[in-house]
């Protein structure tokens, strides 16, 4: 088995992103049932969302700067150059929306959601936006990964 640092960092990045989106869904459900007794749990969920997104940012950023250039060169030579030109370019900038929303979620969830319908609606919207944008970023990542895969397959086929 040959697991490189690049593999570990990339998979940890994707995992933290998925966990962040799942945690945001948890916050959404807690907020739907907002009561005094689950207020602390909702706030902890929001903190978990932000922590996961920060971890995904740092790990993804490190991988993007140190390891992605090699993958990018492979993708651009393959049959799916749009995997980088469209999906990676969009993903790397779209992620900042998710990150900012996750930071804001920690602030919005500090209100008494069980007593304030406006604050509750805000948390519901923001947590769902984190879920949707997070899933979009994950999906784009899968397309980038497949872009590298089809490029490598094409290279192997061409070499035969």
């Amino acid at each position, binding site marked *: 088995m040959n697991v490189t640092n690049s593999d570990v960092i990339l998979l940890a990045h994707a995992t933290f992103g998925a966990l962040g989106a799942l945690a945001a869904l948890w916050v959404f459900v807690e907020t739907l049932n907002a009561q005094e007794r689950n207020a602390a749990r909702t706030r902890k969920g929001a903190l978990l969302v932000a922590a996961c997104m920060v971890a995904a*940012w740092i790990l993804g*950023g490190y991988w*993007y*700067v140190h390891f992605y250039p090699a993958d990018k060169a492979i993708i651009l030579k393959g049959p799916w150059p749009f995997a980088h*030109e*469209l999906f990676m*370019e*969009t993903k*790397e*900038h*779209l992620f*900042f*929306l998710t*990150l*900012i*929303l996750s*930071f*804001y979620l920690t*602030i*919005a969830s*500090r*209100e*008494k959601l069980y*007593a*304030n*319908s*406006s*604050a509750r*609606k*805000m948390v519901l*919207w*923001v947590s769902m*936006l984190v879920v949707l*944008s997070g899933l*979009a970023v994950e999906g784009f990542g899968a397309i980038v990964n497949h872009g590298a895969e089809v490029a490598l397959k094409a290279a192997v086929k061409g070499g035969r």
Partner: protein
Amino acid sequence: MDAATPKLGRVNAAYALSAAIVILFNTLISCVKDAHVPLKAFMASLTGKDWTTQGLADVILFALLGAILSNTGLPEKIGPKRLICFLTAAVVIAGTGLFAWYALY
């Protein structure tokens, strides 16, 4: 605060507005730096990579703008419904804007 006064708290409203503005700023700077190479080079010179600079700028701007707006009455005057609409619209416009930019540019 109770159910009879469904307003967002001062800090909450301020950071909601800040988030919406930063989200739009992020898309704008993504497009402008691609179209204006000297800006991209300048951003890269600050941290070694324009993307890194952009992310840090977003986070710093979000924190600063939120803190500044917290000391004004502006976000509270906007009202929670409009803030939710503005933030949601900002995310939709910014997201589709980014996708459209990289699809067409």
